[in-house]
């Protein structure tokens, strides 16, 4: 009976899309072998590097994809390990990050003796520096609000020429929190550029974005590192229910969407002792907070049209009361606080959750949501939009959703269904996506075989393109639709970046121009991994007719061309 109703619902969802009148026939047109290889690399990696096309062709597309779906079978690039090694906050617990890279509240607590000073001598010195700075700032009364791009550029130039360990110390001494953000940004870029497990990195980006948190929201400055490492990365090909639970219990998410402050609205009337009342007041606990409950259904699982009501939001919020964090600003862990949990009976999406429950109320909610047909549909759609096309064919989504349902949310299996499909290897999907800012910058670095030893200037470029890493304020994450980032300022920034990269004007990245061929068509083939469009090539040839064409300039022009914006 249950199976049948789910099947009916899926069919209804698919039917809706079928009546939208869009022509999906392009998704039946197959690609030739060369296109298949290029398409595989363009979609499943952050852009091909020199030699990648040959590797995939030799191994065969199917086998290569299978390997990417099992990253543990791929030998990792030693270049990556060497670059990650100095980024020490990546290995720390959140509490260690709070102590060693203290935010202002922690520095203040340490100065009042409410918290012990860090063991590490460097970190202790950092606290002293912060205290002095805090005092100086109080005396200077908050001067210096202006931004100075020139100063930032010079600073990046200096940092780029400093050895990584010394560089981190310079950054951490000036602004400890920034060192943590730098580590995250650098690690993300180094992995995207150097990892041999490219699909895993694409998936890590996808899921972080799906379960977005914003690093500049208060305690998330110290909670985001462990969030990505412990809640997201272990599950990118795993089971959706596990991933959902890991994010639901992560301090970063509990803080970002305010669930840690959400308490039973009955609390005021209940007979609790005076001390607890005071504690609740100090925390400014105001009762139920619906923020997480709403986003959990709208953005994480069912989708905005997934069939829930405002009443469901309140019921889910009630189930999640008590899921909180022990001292978020100090990098505290998830705790369940039974005292503030709503003990009443709840009904979520028609399922009764009996009164008297505790922590397991929210677990029930996660079960219901993870297994709901709307979730299978919503997640499949989002994956297909990311990996296939902005408007993917409903028939493909339906097959992916079926896999999701049949395997109880096995993400790897859903990916397999998509990557085995004729729709994935079709004219409709080929070059159909415009690169996101992250994909554009990283693919340019990979195509030009640049050596990157300081990735922050690249992160700055990505921010200038409009999608700063870890800094999407809204819980929606960034859209993967083409229209989102094709705007004037961003396009100009793309072109300027391309020329700066091959001219070696991006600090920390080095392109060896000797590697480029000596005629424009060949250079274009080198970085595009296919022939350039006649329009692009003509424009370059015309421009170079008057001058001595340097291969680096030609490469820059191709990387800034319309051809390179697509993947």
């Amino acid at each position, binding site marked *: 009976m249950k199976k049948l109703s789910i099947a009916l619902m899926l069919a209804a969802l698919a039917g809706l899309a079928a009546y939208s009148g869009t022509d999906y026939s392009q998704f039946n047109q197959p690609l030739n072998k060369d296109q298949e290889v290029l398409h595989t690399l363009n979609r499943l990696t952050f852009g091909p590097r020199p030699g990648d096309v040959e590797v995939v062709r030799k191994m065969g597309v199917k086998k290569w994809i299978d390997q990417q779906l099992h990253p543990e079978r791929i030998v990792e690039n030693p270049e990556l390990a060497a670059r990650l090694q100095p980024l020490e906050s990546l290995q720390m617990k959140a509490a260690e990050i709070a102590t060693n890279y203290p935010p202002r509240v922690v520095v203040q607590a340490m100065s009042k003796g409410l918290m012990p000073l860090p063991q590490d001598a460097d970190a202790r010195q950092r606290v002293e520096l912060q205290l002095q700075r805090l005092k100086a700032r109080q005396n200077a*009364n908050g001067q210096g*609000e202006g931004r100075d791009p020139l100063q930032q550029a010079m600073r990046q130039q200096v940092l780029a020429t400093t050895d990584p360990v010394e560089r981190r110390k310079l950054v951490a001494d000036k602004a400890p929190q920034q060192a943590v953000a730098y580590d995250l940004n650098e690690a993300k870029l180094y992995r995207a550029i150097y990892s041999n497990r490219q699909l895993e990195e694409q998936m890590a980006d996808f899921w972080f974005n799906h379960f977005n948190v914003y690093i500049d929201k208060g305690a998330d400055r110290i909670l985001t590192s462990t969030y990505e490492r412990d809640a997201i990365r272990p599950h990118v090909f795993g089971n959706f229910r596990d991933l959902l639970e890991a994010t639901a219990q992560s301090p970063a998410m509990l803080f970002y969407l305010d669930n840690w402050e959400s308490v039973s609205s009955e609390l005021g009337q209940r007979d609790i002792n005076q001390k607890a009342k005071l504690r609740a007041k100090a925390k400014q606990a105001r009762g139920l907070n619906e923020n997480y409950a709403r986003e959990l259904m709208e953005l994480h699982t069912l989708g905005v049209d997934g069939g829930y009501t405002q009443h469901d939001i309140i019921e889910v919020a009630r189930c999640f009361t008590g899921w909180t964090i022990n001292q978020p600003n100090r990098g505290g862990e998830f705790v369940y606080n039974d005292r503030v949990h709503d003990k009443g009976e709840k009904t979520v999406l028609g399922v009764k959750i009996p009164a008297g429950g505790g922590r397991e109320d929210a677990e029930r909610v996660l079960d219901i949501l993870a297994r709901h047909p709307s979730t299978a549909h919503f997640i499949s759609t989002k994956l297909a939009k990311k990996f296939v096309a902005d408007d993917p064919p409903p028939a493909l989504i339906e097959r992916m959703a079926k896999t999701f349902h049949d395997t109880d949310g096995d993400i790897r299996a859903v990916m397999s269904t998509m990557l085995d499909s004729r729709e994935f290897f079709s004219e409709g999907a080929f070059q159909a996506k415009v690169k996101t800012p992250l994909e554009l910058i990283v693919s340019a670095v990979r195509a030009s075989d640049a050596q990157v030893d300081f990735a922050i200037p690249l992160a700055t470029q990505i921010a*200038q393109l*409009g999608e700063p890493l870890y800094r999407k304020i809204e819980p929606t994450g960034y859209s993967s639709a083409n229209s989102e980032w*094709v*705007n004037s300022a961003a396009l*100009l920034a793309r072109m300027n970046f391309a020329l*700066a990269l091959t001219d070696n004007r991006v600090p920390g990245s080095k392109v060896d121009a000797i590697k480029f061929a000596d005629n424009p068509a060949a250079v274009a083939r080198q970085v595009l991994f296919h022939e350039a469009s006649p329009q692009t090539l003509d424009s370059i040839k015309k421009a170079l007719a008057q001058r001595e064409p340097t291969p680096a300039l030609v490469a820059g022009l191709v990387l800034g061309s*319309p051809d390179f914006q697509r993947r």
Partner: protein
Amino acid sequence: MSTRRLFLKSSALGMFGVGTAPAWLSRALYAADGPGAHKKILVAIFQRGAVDGLNVVVPFGEKQYYSLRPNLAIPKPDRTENSAIDLDGFFGLHPALAPLKPIYDSGHMAIVHAVGSPDPTRSHFDAQDYMESGTPGRKATSDGWLNRALRIQKDASPVRAVSLGTALPRAMRGQNEAVAIANLNDFQIRDTRGAGTFESMYESSLDQVLNGAGRETFEAVKLMQSIQKQPYAPRNGVQYPNSSLGQDLMQIARLIKSNVGLEVAFAEMRGWDTHVNEVGARPTVGQLANLLGQFGGALAAFYQDLGDRMADVSVITMSEFGRTARENGSRGTDHGHANVMFAFGGGIRGAKVYGQWPGLEQEQLYEQRDLQLTTDFRDVLGELVVRHLGNAQVASVFPGYEQPKFRGIVG
């Protein structure tokens, strides 16, 4: 004046050559010639971090203000710089906002008090999001009110909607073309060897999406070139503060005076989250005073620089929520509810503090701690959209808020 316009027109058209000027450009320039046909311009300024409105426009006539804020309260006006500047016998300006007083007195600046978003959130990011999307309580809105305030128009100027900064703020995102410009002088292909080539590539590209965006980009770039050629000199030696808001407003003034078709602009100032040491040795100095000095200085410079052109321009300021009525234990204030907005420009009916004053007695406070809201921010923005920009479709600018209550700020 007319010769100057003619000069601008011929120089701007000259860049394109006879017969090749895009339609929007001729429209923008010719429109400038018609009597009173200047496009109306709305400039929105966001004070991110929640400014303490009760210390910005001070209710010195309210006894309770002084008992709630023993260390923070700005003293009653006594004509010294250590006291509020009297506006109407009840409200006074923070003394650091002295540069705004002449604008207020001239009748071109209005203040709205106890205004803000009805949503109860005290989260900066939610409240900013709601204020920028224009839909409090609704997170799924994907575009911003300032973008929706523009009417869909073919051949519109590529710089009709400009935000200063590297990213397009939420308020500006949406269907209408909007550009983020960090610096007018930087809005170009920096490496001259690439400029013409990229333009040719994007103009000839068969890729419809990129071809379209590319065209708009290079149209905007060309337009900027006419502006970039000459260094900008504000009127009568007006000095903009060297703060980021000062520099941003100077660039907006530059765009306005270049007659390139600007309709809406957005700038922001950060740093208002004064939980700790909001004031220094005296209530009239310290962190908030310094911020207000930058803020007021930038606004006043913009007003003076534009001179007669202010007839077409309205500026509106906003902040996500106010701060607690009561000071906290660290000479600061925490997240609150209602706040204050400034509106100024040629069409503003000023020299008045608008809004019903809710009072600061314990039972008058919102959740017993914050200034109560008596004006929805959409009432103010809606009036500007309808009466200043002339867009009557206010229900599509503020969906779910079909009937804003205009306060008569725009006259």
